[in-house]
């Protein structure tokens, strides 16, 4: 026994390699780290819930034979022309500027094939997007970049954005490398500036003003268009109540897993709450006001598969929205790009520098050569395929729970795998009747 035991290097749980790297990077540059995407930390999520398939006490529906409906009507509280979608999975707001024109067109094509809506973003509506989108939601943001009444009238619905899950309370940014001549022209900005977007709307403050603002937009559009209010999940119980009181037709609730084109890493990781605890709070607010299923609830932030769709709807959502997953479906982070991504300091499966415009997939870029790499027809087809899979998966699980429509899923179809998820989702811990915080 002359050989010594090799030393084991112990990594600090507090100062792990990521923390050390970030301190070193900050010391070298003097500026916070900016990136795209949503939070990367592990959070209580839909994976911590399970659906209870039928057996003796409930009977299931026959797969592929007995119908499981998927359609949803959005905005029938006040709007003369509510939106009727074939599937309850919508495409979240992402701007032309953050995304290439081809990517926006592909989102419109895919959504239209699948029978759902897509959404503009900060910077206005492009003709390509309007032309390819059967149902287009026009975002009304604090910056009002590209906002004009002609496009307002062309929209099928209007979404007043108060915040987003990746950065509730924060404004937007679009770094200069993506502010090209076309993007700058649409936003009335000098070419190449680091565009800052305000975090608050310029002409109203607080919920009473919001009611007047909603009334103004309704008046301008002759009460035809559904008006959504989008909030970043932080205090959803109160925010939903105030938005409904202000006159919203639809609430869009975005959890902290929701992506962004460009925001400070520290903001993405430390502000807001996950979508899992946000949904029950929003549903409670709607139920207390007698507005559940009358004011529709669209939830987003980390939706990846049909199980997530089914679980979100079982918790009380009327529909879900996808952003990051839609970009992945178009080709973001595809393994074939691994070599190119490594050249710019990333790798397939890790790429999040959506802010710098060098995306080899041609999606989060304004570079004309890179943009050409994304064929909008092929991208649209891929997105439509993915949307179909999401819905088929959700239907499969709903039928197993004995539900003839995705909207018939309810919290009684769910249990939680962890105490935390049980408390947040307000469903029993699996194998018990215990909902922490509600029953003792």
């Amino acid at each position, binding site marked *: 026994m002359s050989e010594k035991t090799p030393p084991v290097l112990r990594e600090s749980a507090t100062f792990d390699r990521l923390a050390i790297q970030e301190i070193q990077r900050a010391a070298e540059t003097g500026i916070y780290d900016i990136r795209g995407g949503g939070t990367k930390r592990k959070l209580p999520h839909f994976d911590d819930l399970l659906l209870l398939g039928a057996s003796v006490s409930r009977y299931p529906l026959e797969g592929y034979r007995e119908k499981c409906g998927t359609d949803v009507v959005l905005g029938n509280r006040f709007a003369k022309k509510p939106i009727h979608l074939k599937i309850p999975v919508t495409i979240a707001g992402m701007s032309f500027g953050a995304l290439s024109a081809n990517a926006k067109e592909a989102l419109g094509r895919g959504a239209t094939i699948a029978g759902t809506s897509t959404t503009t973003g900060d910077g206005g509506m492009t003709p390509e997007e309007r032309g390819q989108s059967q149902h287009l939601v026009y975002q009304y943001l604090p910056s009002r970049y590209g906002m004009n009444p002609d496009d307002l009238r062309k929209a099928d619905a209007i979404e007043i954005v108060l915040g987003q899950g990746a950065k509730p309370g924060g404004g937007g940014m679009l770094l200069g490398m993506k502010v090209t001549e076309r993007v700058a022209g649409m936003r009335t900005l000098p070419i190449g500036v680091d565009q800052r977007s*305000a975090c608050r709307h310029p*002409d109203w403050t607080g919920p009473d003003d919001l009611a007047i603002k909603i009334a103004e937009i309704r008046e301008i559009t002759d009460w035809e268009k559904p008006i959504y209010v989008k909030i970043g999940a932080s205090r959803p119980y109160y925010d939903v109540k105030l938005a409904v009181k202000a006159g919203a037709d639809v609430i869009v609730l975005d959890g902290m897993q929701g992506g962004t084109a460009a925001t400070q890493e520290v903001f993405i990781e430390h502000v807001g709450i996950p979508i899992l605890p946000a949904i029950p709070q929003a549903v409670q607010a709607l139920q207390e006001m007698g507005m559940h299923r009358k004011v529709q609830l669209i939830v987003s932030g980390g939706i990846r598969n049909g199980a997530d769709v089914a679980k979100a709807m079982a918790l009380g959502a009327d529909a879900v929205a996808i952003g990051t997953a839609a970009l992945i479906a178009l080709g973001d982070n595809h393994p074939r790009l691994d070599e190119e991504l490594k050249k710019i300091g990333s790798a397939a499966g890790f790429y999040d520098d959506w802010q710098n415009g060098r995306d080899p997939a041609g999606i989060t870029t304004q570079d004309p050569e890179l943009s050409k790499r994304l064929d909008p027809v092929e991208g649209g087809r891929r997105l439509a395929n993915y949307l179909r899979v999401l819905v088929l998966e959700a239907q499969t699980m709903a039928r197993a729970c004995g539900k003839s429509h995705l909207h018939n899923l309810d919290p009684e179809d769910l249990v939680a795998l962890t105490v935390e998820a049980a408390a947040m989702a307000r469903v029993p811990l699996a194998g018990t009747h215990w909902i922490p915080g509600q029953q003792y």
Partner: protein
Amino acid sequence: MKTIDLSNASVRDLNQALHDQAKHVDDREWVVTHPDGAHNLAVGVNQEVSIDIQGHAGYYCAGMNQKASVTVHGNVGVGCAENMMSGYVRVKGSASQAAGATAHGGLLVIEGDAGARCGISMKGIDIVVGGSIGHMSCFMGQAGRLVVCGDAGDALGDSLYETRIYVKGKVESLGSDCIAKEMRAEHLEELQQLLDRAGFNEKAADFKRYGSARQLYNFKVDNASAY
């Protein structure tokens, strides 16, 4: 001339009648009586009509106006002519906050004073104020001209892009990246034209010009204290 009396018609009736003019013009001249501070009067109009509002108006009067000429014989609430694209809005009294916010075009004339955030995020509109304006006016102003015949409050032109600001009186303070600039011949000329169009008997030579120093256009860590 068409008169709509808001003591027996609704704001919805008014706006729908005005919107219908975009398809077919029934009357070029409209008069609105008994506005009594109602919100959202004459919003989203898209036709070359003149609208005379005979009294005070609430929030967002003439919001998103296109082509119309709107005169308010009184004061206006928050966001008068917000996001206006074209046309002309004249306020005979004073305006509350955020007058002309985010507007892309047209001319907004306020004969009295304007409150805080006048011209916030303006994107091409021309605003001429006969009196004074409040704090944080022209915050993130992107394009267009803001003319103030009186004084300006704190933090004028904070985070300014390319809006040109002309003030005759005292400026309480300038916001980040907003500086006094030389008044050259082309500025005197455009300012005099604006004053004349607004119907104010003022001389361009009595004003000072303010604009962006363009130091915050691209983030530099040395400027962090300015944010």
